[in-house]
């Protein structure tokens, strides 16, 4: 069973449908026990960082997720859900994230020239970094995935597993032990995206430590 964390941020219809399409048993929940029982957890998110981080904190889900992940449960953050994995975001101010992966979230516009439109919307090829991550085992370098974002993660040290070229090398995906993050939307990235989700739900607690 894979659990999508429901904390009132964004629309989970497509994510749920995409997991169902690859045959995964899926639940959408904010219940601690259900998250504990799940084989994997997905942290989604669309919208503003500050609001999302506050909702996680107010509901106590931040602590639940951290505890489960520190005990080895596989976690994937998607889009804003990925950005929440880092130490801090500078989206309209300065806000604390979950601190599960080292890095900070900054505006794309500070690092690219004006002809690059913001938000970065569309299909961009992935450039793999380092050893091929387990979540990429069914896809290839240069496969395209769908992005919609205005901020991106920086100073992530060696956790970057893929980048996307858009006037700068944008962090597209990260991994650190049992924690994964995708800046793009696998649930909107056609077969390539489904194959990433499929690889993720095959990862079990204790597979990677």
């Amino acid at each position, binding site marked *: 069973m894979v659990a999508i964390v429901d904390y009132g941020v964004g*629309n989970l*219809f*497509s994510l749920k*449908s*995409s997991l*169902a*399409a690859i045959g995964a048993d899926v639940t959408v929940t904010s219940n601690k026990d259900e998250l504990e029982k799940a084989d994997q957890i997905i942290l989604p998110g*669309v*919208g503003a960082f500050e609001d999302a981080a506050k909702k996680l904190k107010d509901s106590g889900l931040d602590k639940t997720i951290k505890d489960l992940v520190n005990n080895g449960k596989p976690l994937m953050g998607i889009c804003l859900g990925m950005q929440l994995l880092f130490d801090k975001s500078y989206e309209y101010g300065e806000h604390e994230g979950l601190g599960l992966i080292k890095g900070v979230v900054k505006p794309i516009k500070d690092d690219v020239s*004006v*002809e690059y*439109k*913001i*938000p*970065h*919307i*569309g*299909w*961009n*090829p992935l450039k793999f970094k380092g050893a091929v991550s387990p979540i990429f085992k069914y896809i290839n370098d240069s496969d*395209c995935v*769908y992005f*919609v974002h205005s901020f991106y993660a920086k100073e992530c040290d060696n956790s970057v597993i893929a980048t996307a*070229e*858009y006037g700068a090398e944008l962090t597209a995906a990260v991994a650190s032990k049992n924690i994964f993050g995708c800046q793009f939307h696998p*649930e*909107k*990235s*056609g*077969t*390539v*995206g*489904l194959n990433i989700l499929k690889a993720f739900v095959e990862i079990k607690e204790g597979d990677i430590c």
Partner: protein
Amino acid sequence: MITKRIIPCLDVKDGRVVKGVNFQGLSDVSSPITLAKYYSECGADELVFYDITASSDGRKLFTDILCETAKSVFIPLTVGGGINTVADFDRVLKCGADKVSVNSGAIRNPDLIYEAAKLYGDQCVVISADVKRVDGVFRVFSKGGRENTGMEAIEWIKRCVGNGAGEVVLNSIDTDGVKKGFDLEMLDAVCNAVSVPVIASGGAGKIEDFITLFNTLPKVDAGLAASIFHFGEVKITDLKEKMANAGIPTRIS
């Protein structure tokens, strides 16, 4: 490098695709779900569902079909037609739409874009403009291109983007249906006026029209068409292969 998007547009009325669909080998060509799946498999980068239903029964049918489609098609879906209020945004976003395009609704209520962008983010709101030259001036038309609003188009589009529209679909009434190529002059004027993605619509008749579009105007992000895809005059797999061969950044799936 971000790739140039190819977007088929499906006009849906009472739950069926209308306006000349003629595909061989598809069992139910007027089923939006079947067509959406087919286009997704051919490499379409995004789909537009345009609701041309007038009745409320038809509208319910439309959202049901949208939900069904979003359960099996995993590329971005944009929905347009009949979007007049924030509640309309909510209705289609809940069914799996990623973006919502507004046209006459924004003309009637100029606050709609601002309100929707504040709630759902700029990336969710698309301004679709039907534009035609009248005495040498680009004018915005409403009601499916039937009524001249008298508004100057570039100023209107700039205002919509200023209010939070994250993308522009420019449909040139002058080239629409003519199949002699996109309206490069009009598109150039819009691309130079706004800094958000611009989608070209109206006028594509053959593969070369897309190549000319992206080579002449590298600022254009996507090309949209309907009947040439529906009738198989342009096959998306061929189109994307030719685009890639012409050195245009293209997603080959």
